């Protein structure tokens, strides 16, 4: 493999899981059947189908998974539509890893963690959650608040039910936006749900989801008494070249693909309001 930054590696899609009507999870290996490269939770990779496009996606599998890499991808554009139409065995190109990961080995160590995700926002957090589950001894309590429009839009539902919920010391709180037949869990929007749950102020929060959810949940957390220094999020959507040179992803003097995509809200606060 070369160490060229802009020349990708070859990847092969070996498994496609349909998560929701518009989210599929793709398992990617090299043609030789190994994991393309190592990464840390929160890092991204550039996937591409030549001729269709190249885009940045969070790596949703945990680094502790030694066999393969996974990406949960929502259909929302030209490239993702193509990806969704793929059959198993299709080759794609991949380069990475890019960006600063969540500080799982530093700041988050030993902390009680609260994950808040909305919709496809679970994708980057899933990597962290599984990393934490696999290194359980290094972290305190784990609480996951996850919501989606409906039951059918919950990504990784089976894994949540059969693995995360089954874990000791992992508390999972699910919610959906509207009442639905066959759902006896919580109904309501995430910001309110978080407030209802009234989490312990000691927790460190890792949050990802649509901008509106982020905005109101953050406000809710502030109301509850959380500090911005306790809350992390990721902004991988802004990344383009991945190597900090194309000049697009900067927010003020910070480059999302070099200084991010993981930011703490107090860091974001210092940046100009242009994101």
């Amino acid at each position, binding site marked *: 493999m070369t160490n060229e930054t802009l020349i990708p590696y070859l990847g092969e899609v070996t498994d496609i899981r349909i998560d929701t009507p518009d989210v599929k999870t793709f398992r990617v290996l090299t043609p030789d059947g190994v994991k393309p490269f190592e990464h840390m939770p929160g890092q991204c990779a550039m996937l591409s189908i030549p001729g269709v496009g190249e885009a940045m996606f969070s790596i949703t599998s945990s680094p502790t998974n030694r066999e393969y890499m996974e990406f949960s991808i929502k259909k929302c554009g030209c490239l993702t*539509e193509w990806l969704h*139409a*793929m059959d198993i065995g299709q080759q794609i190109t991949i380069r990475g890893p890019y960006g600063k990961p969540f500080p799982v080995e530093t700041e988050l160590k030993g902390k009680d963690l609260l994950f808040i995700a909305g919709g496809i926002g679970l994708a980057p957090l899933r990597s962290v959650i599984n990393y934490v589950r696999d290194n359980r001894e290094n972290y305190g309590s784990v609480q996951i608040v996850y919501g989606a429009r409906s039951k059918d839009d919950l990504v990784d539902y089976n894994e949540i039910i059969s693995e995360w919920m089954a874990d000791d010391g992992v508390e999972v709180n699910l919610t959906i936006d509207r009442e639905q037949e066959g759902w006896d869990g919580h109904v309501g929007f995430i910001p309110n749900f978080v407030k209802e749950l009234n989490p312990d102020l000691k927790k460190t929060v890792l949050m990802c989801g649509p901008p509106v959810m982020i905005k109101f949940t953050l406000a809710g957390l502030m109301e509850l008494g959380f500090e911005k220094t306790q809350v992390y999020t990721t902004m991988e959507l802004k990344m383009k070249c991945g190597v900090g040179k194309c000049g697009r992803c900067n927010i003020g003097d910070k480059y999302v693909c070099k200084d991010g995509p993981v930011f703490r809200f107090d860091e974001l606060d210092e940046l100009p309001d242009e994101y």
Partner: protein
Amino acid sequence: MQRIGVFVCHCGTNIAGTVDVKAVAEALGREPSVVTSVDYQYMCSESGQNLIKDAIRDYKLTGVVVCSCSPRMHENTFRKAAAAAGLNPYMVEIANIREQCSWIHKDVAEATEKAIILGRAAIAKVQLNAPLVAGESPVIKRALVIGGGIAGIQTALDIADAGFEVDIVEKQPTIGGKMTQLDKTFPTLDCAACILTPKMVECAQNELINIYSYSEVDAVSGFVGNFSVKIRKKARYVDETKCTGCGLCTEKCPQKKVPNEFNLGMDNRRAVYIPFAQAVPKVATIDADYCTMLKTGKCGVCSKVCTAGAINYKQTDEIVERQYGAIVVATGFNPIKVDKYDEYAYGQSKDVITSLEFERLTNAAGPTSGKLLRPSDGKHPHKIVFIQCVGSRCTPEKGKSYCSKICCMYTAKHAMLTREKYPDTEVYVFYIDVRTPGKNFDEFYRRATEEYGVHYIKGMVGKVSPKADGTLEVQASDLIMNEQLRIDADLVVLAAAIEPDKSARPLATMLTASMDTNDFFTEAHPKLRPVESPTAGIFLSGACQGPKDIPETVSQAGAAAAKVIGLLAKNKLTCNPCVAHSDELLCNGCSQCANVCPYGAITYIEKEFVMPDRSKKIRRVASVNPAVCQGCGACTVTCPSGAMDLHGFSNRQIMAEVDAICK
């Protein structure tokens, strides 16, 4: 990304004879997005269609490419098959590997390579196809028949018989057309008037039929099911509703020197006239070119004698606008002008006449009351020469390239009738070929030669020279005997070629119906859709489509009527969904597209947009009426931003085809 199935048709040996269909199927099977690619004997057969239907279900196809004959032939067949299997019919594309490949190339390798490229282009196009849903438009349950000859009459009667309203527009004062001028009809020799006039009367009496005589079509707009036609009722200076057809005015009119067109100018009529006794409507018409009153303001005799008070010198042209669901063109034919053939001396001698003139000379209602007399001296002719193919089967400079089809038979009729009535008359017929492909036609021709002793001579007439003694010297060559002949004839009859009526060309433009180089209307398909014009809702009846005799005309008239009835029986028509559409986000409302739209399908609306910063902005944008748009695409090229695009033929689809072809 589509899941595409490719189906390569052998068309028996039509395609497979020149194109290696297996290789085509195999090569196309390797194209991205193609999930199945097969070849089959006849894709259009039921089992071929089933193959497609099954594949759509089995492979969950989202697109179908059929490599077969022209899409003009079977596109609909395959679209229907796809629809039956639950695939949107507009996800089907045809690669034309027969008319545009196997039939024009001889080299198998070359043709196969081309078929693969055409297949690739279709695959590239279908990649970008989107399901289209056809809209619907209502059908106006009334038909218009343009032309009131036997074709128009028969069509109108048949349509009315099915219970639909029909309007006939006839430019002459009466319906009836050319057939009214004929005496007997071949091969049965029954009287033309006897079989035609009852139909004319039936037209007049049928409540569902409305005759606009002495009228012409001025403008046509709209589209199938929804035509709007402006009919110009020319001023005839006679109130049709009052005129009883008594004919008194035509007797009293002092202007007696008007050439009578009904008798081809061989006698005269008055300035106010009824073309012939059985005219329908039986209403007088004043010929403004000759009427003294209309020209000088002095006379008024007809007005004085008319007891019904029907004469109205102040009448003007009237425009009537009517709506129709279907239009039948039955504009008929005319014999060509033969003056230009100097060698036949038509202009030089009164005794050189055309066959239609001969027809009038033998007709009891004609200028000679049916007695065959020479126009020059009124004497009985003893030697008559008929010359065939005058202007037919010629070089384009000399005349028409086609065969006028009816001349052989009517000449045989004329010859036979002459010999029967005047056994003392010698009759010669000069011909290139005698063509008698029709029921009882050849028998008829043989009777003429065998029973009636008509001299048929295969050969060309080189020159007709009027001589001082009033006879006509006909110089000709007998190709069979290989000798030069000289015949001193008393009468020479020219079988002039027939051509479409002059009114057909401007009419075709109004109807946007296509014509061939001879101004005959083009049929949608020469074999399978012979009575339909390629323009939807326009049908063809009679000689406007090509030379034909009465039985053929009548059967085509019936066929056209059947097609019209089929159309009018529907309450709604499915619109062509391949129409223009405007991407409102891209449209900047510059109005260029509306400027080029021939149908007025584009209007502008003020539309509110939510901007990325959530502010609202009102912008003027184009909006296409899909029922009115016919999908020409003129607007799409005028639009610089590409906001205006065409369903089914989008910019990207066409460019994808270009790419695939040039690859």
